[in-house]
Structures are given as C-alpha cells and as structure tokens.
C-alpha cells in the first residue's frame, strides 16, 4: 500500500519537475509574454478593425451626357446618397478609363436624351451602370444600392404609374442573436479561434522538433520520465499560456469591441479548454513527426493555421463551399470551436449545441494525443 503511494508520489514529483523545466523555458523567453499578450491583442485589433464585411462608401464615377432636369435629379440622388462617393467624369471614355485603372468601382452613365426619352412614347430611357465585377461582393452591393436609388427616383417623379398595381407582400426580417447583423460580432469569436490555433498548434509544433534539432532530446530520454509525463509536461505550460491569452482576448472583445456575452464565463472557459486538447495534440503530433523546426512550422501552418483561417467558417461560410470541401471541414477542430464560441457569445449557453461540438473536439484531441504517444518512442535512432 505504502509502496503504491510512494510510486504515485514520485510520479507526481517527476511530472512537476518537467513542468517546472518547461514552464521556466517558456517564461524565461521574453518572447513568450509577447506571444501570450501582445500578439493576441494585436491580432484581435486587426481583425476587429481591419475586417469588415459591412460595405460603407463605394467610390463611383458619373458621366452625365444629359444636362436636363431629370438627369440632374438622378445625379443628385446618387451624389447625396450615403452609399456612394461620386466622382464626375467628363465623358464615357474617361469614365471607363477610371474603372479600368481601378480608381472607381462603378461608372453610372446618364445618356443624352435621357430626360426626353423618359416622357416620350415608345422610347426607353436607360441609365447604364458599368460595375467592376472583379470583386463580386462589392459589385453586388453596387447593384443593390443603384437599384434602391433608382426606385426612389422613379417614385419621386411619379413614374411608377405604369407598373402593375398589386397588394404588396412585405417581408419582416429579424436577425436572431445579432439584431443589427454586425459582421464584427461574428468575426471576433472567429478570430479568437484563429489566435488559439496559432498558440496551441504552431507553438507546440516546434517543441519536440527543437529538441531533435538541438540534440537535447537524448538528455530528456535519459531521465526516468515516462512518455506520458513528457507529453503532459510539454503541453501544460502552453495550455496555461493559451488560456491566459484567451482571457486577454475575451476582455478586449467585451470591453473594447462591446461584444455581448450572452452565455456564461464557465461555458467560455470550458469550450476554450476543450478546444486546446486537439489544438495542442495536433501541434505535438507534428512535432514528433518532423525532425526540423522549419518543416514542423510549415506543416503547422498548413494543417493548423490556414484551415482555421479559411475552412472554419470564420470568414467564409462553410455551407457555400463545394461538398468535398465541406467534408474536409468536418475534420477541422477549429470549425467546432468557431460555432461554439459564436454560440456562447451571441446566443448563450445552448448546451445542445455545445456538448456535441465539445465531444467532437475531445475525440479528435484524443486521437492526436494517442498518435503522438505511439510515435514518441523513448529510443534513439
């Protein structure tokens, strides 16, 4: 009985020893603090301010070939709208030039005779809009805005009498969880996922590869530590580091970006801790597989960071991707983290959503740790 007790105690002492060693390695490196605090803050700042899907003001050119009252009125409607910054262009040719040289996003051409044709029989008054289609998102906004201004112009002129009279069907649109549909509200939880992946996967991917490269792994193998102890000892300091920076991110999001937290801090902490299991596991697996830090870093970038950025639903909606790619996203822990964070922040503690997501992350994490444990032979080649 007391024998087992001693063994358990010495197991813990050994674990504590390697954790202290790893912890010191982390905290003595001044860059660790930069990583835990400065980097997440910078990124969150950039994500929060730099990424916005809410189109504000679009620069367009206007060519008015008709000097009449109606052409002026439509031009004024464009100029005074809050959606457009209108640059006048002298003729069609120079307007097209502005578009081609990427100075404006669209050219609105009000052709000669516009006013006359508007009232004449058997003629159609056309307003021509050339849109820069290179950026489809902005192009779609321009379509919508011009359409709205055009309808307003026609209504003001009383020109809608020709349209079929029908009782309107109105659509009452309501956004749950994000009443004003602010893109920042869903982008910030997503950027936290990216930051956590960066800390969890990329940093740990270098941990064992570094010991290989420097030849210090032999020293580690010479200790009485078991594989399990090495794994836990290597992981925990990074776990704590990532949790600290998560806390920094959350505080910034709540205080600076005024993000609502409709769920509880408990759920937030739990989700973050659970996500770190696959994130750290992936990093460690890369680290025991690759022999140089350069290669480990590249693999970490490819399989950890970039998927978190592109395939997690952070920026690009998963449901719009082709089916084969949607299938790939199912294997990406960041995807589940993203949904969970968005849910905790915007919707609340919906455990029916959170628990399946957390279970999945844990399963992937267990797989990664299992593979790492198998690959980490205490043997020198």
């Amino acid at each position: 009985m007391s024998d087992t007790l001693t063994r358990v105690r010495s197991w813990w002492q050994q674990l504590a020893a390697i954790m202290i060693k790893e912890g010191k390695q982390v905290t003595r490196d001044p860059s660790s603090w930069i990583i835990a605090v400065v980097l997440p803050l910078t990124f969150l700042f950039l994500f929060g301010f730099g990424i916005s899907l809410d189109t504000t003001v679009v620069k367009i050119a206007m060519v008015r070939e008709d000097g009449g009252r109606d052409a002026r009125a439509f031009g004024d409607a464009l100029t005074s709208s809050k959606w457009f910054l209108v640059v006048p262009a002298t003729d069609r040719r120079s307007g097209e030039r502005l578009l081609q040289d990427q100075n404006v996003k669209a050219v609105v051409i009000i052709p000669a005779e516009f006013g006359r044709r508007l009232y004449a029989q058997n003629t159609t008054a056309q307003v021509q809009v050339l849109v820069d289609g290179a950026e489809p998102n902005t192009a779609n906004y321009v379509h919508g805005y011009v359409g709205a201004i055009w309808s307003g112009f026609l209504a003001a002129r009383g020109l809608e009498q020709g349209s079929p009279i029908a009782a309107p069907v109105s659509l009452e649109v309501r956004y749950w969880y994000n009443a004003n549909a602010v893109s920042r509200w869903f982008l910030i939880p997503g950027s936290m996922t990216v930051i956590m992946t960066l800390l969890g996967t990329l940093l740990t991917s270098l941990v064992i590869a570094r010991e290989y490269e420097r030849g210090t792994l032999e020293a580690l193998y010479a200790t009485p530590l078991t594989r399990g102890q090495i794994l836990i000892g290597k992981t925990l300091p990074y776990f704590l580091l990532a949790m600290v920076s998560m806390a920094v991110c959350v505080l910034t999001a709540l205080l600076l970006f005024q993000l609502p937290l409709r769920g509880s801090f408990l759920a937030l902490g739990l989700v973050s801790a659970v996500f770190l299991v696959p994130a750290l596991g992936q990093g460690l697996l890369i680290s025991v597989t690759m022999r140089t830090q350069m290669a480990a870093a590249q693999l970490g970038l490819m399989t950890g960071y970039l998927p978190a950025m592109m395939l997690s639903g952070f920026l690009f909606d998963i449901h719009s991707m082709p089916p084969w790619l949607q299938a790939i996203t199912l294997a990406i822990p960041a995807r589940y983290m993203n949904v969970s964070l968005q849910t905790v922040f915007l919707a609340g503690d919906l455990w029916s959503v959170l628990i399946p997501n957390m279970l999945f992350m844990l399963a992937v994490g267990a797989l990664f740790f299992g593979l790492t444990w198998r690959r980490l032979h205490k043997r020198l080649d």
Partner: protein
Amino acid sequence: MLQRLLAIVRKELITMLRDPRARLALIIPPIIQLFIFSSAATMEVKNIALAVVDLDRGPYAADVQQRLAGSRSFTRLPRYANVASARGALEREQVIGILVLPSGFSADRTAGRPASAQLLLDGRRSNAAQITAQYVSTIMAAEGAPLSGAPPDANAAGGSAALARPANAEVVIDNWFNPNLDYRWFMLPNLVGMLSLGVALMITALSVARERELGTFDQTLVSPATPVEIALGKLLPPLLVASVQATLYLLIVTLLYGVPFRGNLLVFYAAVLTFAEACAGVGLFISSLVHTQQQAFLGAFAVLLPFALLSGFATPVENMPWWLQFVTTINPLAHMLRLMQGLFLKGASVASLAQDLVKLLEIALCTTAAAVLLFRRKAA
C-alpha cells in the same frame, strides 16, 4: 565582389534545395493551397438550407415555397410545424433561417390586402444571413406582383440585369472584367500574391535564425564575404523561388481555371520580383533581430497576418477605417493585389500599374536597406 555574392547565393540555394522533401515542400503545398482556398474563399452564398414554417397551408403560401424551390440558391427547404421546433435546427446551424408564412397569408392575398411573412435569421452568420435575406426578399417582391410568369431566379444579379422596369425607364447593369461575378476570378489572382508573400517571407525569416541556432552563422561570417554580400546572398534565392512559383500559378490560374490574363507579362514579372524582394527584406530583418527559429517564425507570422488582413485580400480596403486605409499604402501586399487584379482581370494601362509598381519598388528598397543595415550591425 560579384563572384563572392554568387558563391553565397549558390550556398543558400543548396541549403534550401538539397533535401528532396524540402524541394517538394516549396512546390506542392502552395499548389494544394491554391486549389483548396480558391474553392473555400467565397463570399457567395450557395446551397442555402432554409426552414419553412407554413401556418397558412393555402395556395399562395405554396406558391412562395415553389418559388424558393425553383431558385438555384436554395437547396434544402425542410418544413417544420412551428417556430419552436425549427429553432433547434437553426441553433445547430442546420438551417440559416426560418421563413414563417402566417395563417391568413393566402386569405390576405386573395382579398387583395397587404400580406406579410416573417424571416428569422441566424445572426451568428450575419453575412450569409444578410445575403439570404436579399434572396428571399427578391422572391417575395416577385410574389407581390400578380401571379404570372416563371419564378424569378434570385441569382439573376449576375450578368446584365434590368433592375426595375416601370413604364419606359430602366437601369442596365454591365459587369465588367468578371461578367458572371465569379468569386474565384477575384480570389485566384489574389492568391498569387498571397502565396508569394508566404514563401518569400518564411524562407528569409528562418534563414539567419537557423544558422544562429545551429552555430553555422559564425562560419559564414569568417568567410571572405562581407556582411553586405552575405545579406544580399540571402535575399536573392527567394526571388528565384518566387518567380518559379509565380510562373506555375500563372499557368494554373489561366489554363486550368480559365481566368483571363489581360495585362503585360513583363509587368507581371516585374511585380513578382519587386514584391518578393520587399517581402524578403522584411524576412531578413526579422531574422537578424531574433535568436531562435521559433521567434523568427512568430515574428514572420506577426507580419504576415497584418499584411494579409490589411490588403484587400479577404475584405475590401474601402470598408476599413481611414487610419487603417492609410496603413494599407505601406503594405506591399495591398499594392501587389491591385497589380494582380489589374493584370489578370482588368487589363489596366501600364501607366496606372506603374503607380503601384513604383510604390512597391520604394517599399522593396526600404525593407532591403533596413535588412542589410541591421544585418551588418548584428554581424559586426
């Protein structure tokens, strides 16, 4: 001097390409990224799943659903008895929203009274939700018109479309450069810039740090080459790699994806080389500053991400606050992306491309000078 410089370049190329796995790592991953990310990176909203709660069960409610089903944008329209039961599907992100057709919808329509429907959307995915709302309201507007004709296609925004046609006036929209508003046409030229950035930055950022860590840095320093020559020798190989990669991308993007290349090939290579030089300068600067590869990696990352975010790669520069728009003017990637868009899609005039090219050249000169100066100080 030239001889010694070439010797250093050769040495750097050998270290970089000696290992067959490392050679593959320079070519294969970027191409995989090009394929995956050009499919993933779309702001279009497709394959929409929208829950329908039909409390009306009348002919007009059925008509609305038929119009939705007829649109290309909606692939699944699961029905639910009431909002409470549909809510679960929305919470689990199985549907993006719930369309509620209230009882009396058909009665109102038959009587010629204004009818209304409700659309509840998942604000967690507010961007996709907003676009869905646009689609649904287009369909409802058509529903408001007398029952006739084919159901409208919510995706009709592409190409030329007449927006409103009362009496004898209309707006004719013409999408230039990308007539079908294909998001991939936007993304692929951007990825050419983005992937060159990654490779040029990472190669140089880790170069000095690795030599420091492995202890071979001192050996290089005691060679007859001067620190400036060593620094320049480290800056040239990434240019080579970047131009080989860019050629590969150019072929894939134009031949495989059919994106037009309407610009000048010389300007393209000038842009690629200048851009790679600007990035390599940043990379070498970071590398001279740090002691370990881990730090170098993080340093490169701390630069890569702001470059990518503040470039117009994912979201337009115009959406940013003015002070960040100012930052984009010193971001090499922002200029590179404008050049790529201009070259591939727009066939912009050389004069207008020259503006960005000159900016890029200025940035490249600054970063190279800074990197060489710092390297010389650190090496001395």
